């Protein structure tokens, strides 16, 4: 188990390194930031000074090495717009994003898992078919359409809720619902198929044949086994929290990390985009690592290093 985790950890670091190199190459090799930040008719000396000041005149590989050196020292660069540390800009937006993402995540889990388990236990009934269709609909409905429809009904039509901004807790209701529905749909599909697979196994038949209460069979025998594939999806959801926030925060003018990403990409604010990419990659990698640890906790076979065949490890 330890060896497995160490390998996973190193792989995570490799991913981070790849992401950062990717960010560096993309951002530095595409045009001259000096021309974009300053106006095109700025005096050449000013452009030169700007490039010097930001270290843009050094050869690319030197910039690359310097970039990692700075990262190692906790220096993530400065926003080219207002000269404040890029990481600070990102960090101060995180609470806003979390205040949407955490309730949405809880809702996702509750709705998705219960709908999936329910559908699996009532396989091929009308309610199962209804839940599957609903889940496909939720999965194929882009979040900006869903969000705008909710605004249209509850803000413009009924006037119950505000349509955008972050002044009161009521402002969070529509974005949280928008964020949670799509994820719940995906989760419901995965939970359903995982449960169906488990329910067909012989140990479920054994458990119910030896006279266990059905409830106990489902809760103690089926669900822990179905949890393993479901966990992978949940891990991915934690990791892609910021990506999901990009669209929803833009729809609801919510001042979180997602909107910061859109604006700083539009402004070509290199340091901020890099810090955000690092943040996304780190959440992704740590979420995956957590899933791996949880696997070991749920499934003793993974812990002892003899994972069952055909299992995603």
């Amino acid at each position, binding site marked *: 188990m330890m060896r497995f985790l160490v390998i996973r950890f190193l792989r995570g670091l490799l991913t981070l390194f*790849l992401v950062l190199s990717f960010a560096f190459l*993309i951002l530095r090799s595409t045009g001259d930031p000096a021309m974009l930040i300053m106006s095109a008719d700025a005096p050449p000396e000013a452009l030169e000074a700007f490039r010097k000041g930001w270290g843009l005149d050094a050869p690319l590989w030197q910039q690359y090495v310097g970039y990692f050196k700075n990262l190692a020292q906790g220096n993530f660069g400065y926003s080219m717009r207002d000269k404040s540390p890029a990481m600070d800009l990102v960090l101060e937006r995180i609470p806003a994003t979390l205040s949407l993402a955490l309730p949405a995540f809880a809702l996702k889990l509750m709705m998705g898992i219960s709908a999936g388990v329910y559908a699996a236990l009532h396989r091929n009934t009308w309610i199962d078919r209804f839940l599957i269709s609903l889940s496909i609909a939720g999965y194929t409905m882009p979040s900006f359409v869903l969000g705008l429809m909710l605004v249209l009904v509850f803000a*413009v039509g009924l006037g119950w809720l505000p349509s955008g901004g972050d002044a009161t807790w009521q402002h969070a209701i529509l974005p949280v619902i928008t964020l949670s529905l799509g994820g719940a749909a995906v989760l419901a599909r995965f939970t359903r198929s995982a449960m169906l697979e488990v329910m067909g196994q012989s140990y479920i038949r054994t458990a119910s044949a030896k006279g266990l209460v059905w409830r106990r069979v489902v809760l103690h025998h089926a669900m822990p086994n179905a949890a393993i594939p479901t966990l992978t999806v949940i891990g991915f959801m934690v990791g892609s929290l*910021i990506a999901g926030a990009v*669209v929803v925060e833009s729809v609801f003018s919510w001042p979180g990390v997602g909107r910061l990403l859109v604006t700083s*990409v539009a402004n*070509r604010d290199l340091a901020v985009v890099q810090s955000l990419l690092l943040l996304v*990659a780190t959440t992704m990698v740590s979420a995956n690592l957590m899933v791996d640890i949880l696997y070991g906790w749920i499934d003793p076979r993974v812990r002892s290093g003899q994972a069952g065949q055909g299992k995603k490890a």
Partner: protein
Amino acid sequence: MNTPSLPDQSQTAAPPSLAQSAIQLIRSMPLLVRLCSLWIVVVLGIALLADFISPYSYSQLDLLARLRPPAFWGGSSDHWLGTDELGRDVLSRLFHSVRISLLVAFISTMLSATVGVLMGFAAAHFRGWVEQLVLTLVDFQASMPFMIIALAVLAFFGNTLVLFIALMGFYGWERSARIARGLTIAANEQGYASAVYDLGASPWRVYLRHILPNIASTLIVSVTLTFPEVILLESGLSFLGLGVQPPMTSLGNMVGYGREYLQSAPWILLAPSLFIVVTTFSVSMLGDWLRDLLDPTLN
């Protein structure tokens, strides 16, 4: 094969014509899947005929007729779906948006499938470090949300339609690569691939003429799953103003600009929203049904 069985074969086992097998396929569809297929046909028709069925040019301004409601919303039949903030006909824009969105999604999906299959073939053919490299790239792609990568690349390279489609063409390649690699390794161990090798065929011929047709059905299913996701991605980016750029129009683009008029003229964004949702839903339903049909092990 002995001769007596030949006439027998020509009568019963004659390959059904394309039309016959299509009819058979349609007969075996549940009602919902049939409706979804019908919708897909309609949407394809719109995309192909957009120039002929549009009542106006999609970029034709009519500043005197701005924000007119649709015919069934109290407007006139001059503009069946109303007009937008510049007096452009929403129906005509919708048709052209469908065309652009489908075109982007179609080319991108093909690109992604091609890249994925080639990578998968390379991994399965060379094994060793090539395979490790491909697998690392697959892992990397799968672990980063594509939206984030796309945002970074698009805004920093600037945005042209060609670059945008090329970028979308990387969406989902890792899925095809995984499938192609797995199935090709399996195929290489089966008799038919080595038989063709022994006959002196080049690796290209073996991969393209023999292995590819054998793994095609699984790949097609994976592609039908990628296609709606690309539509969603494209419309999401266009909605944020970072995808298809005006004066060209796409479904997400229409929703993005229509959003400003959510209160006064919601019809501008309702029609494209509906098209996005119903189209992606239809393709997904069809894909799910195909998957169950072609791959009994999954159900």
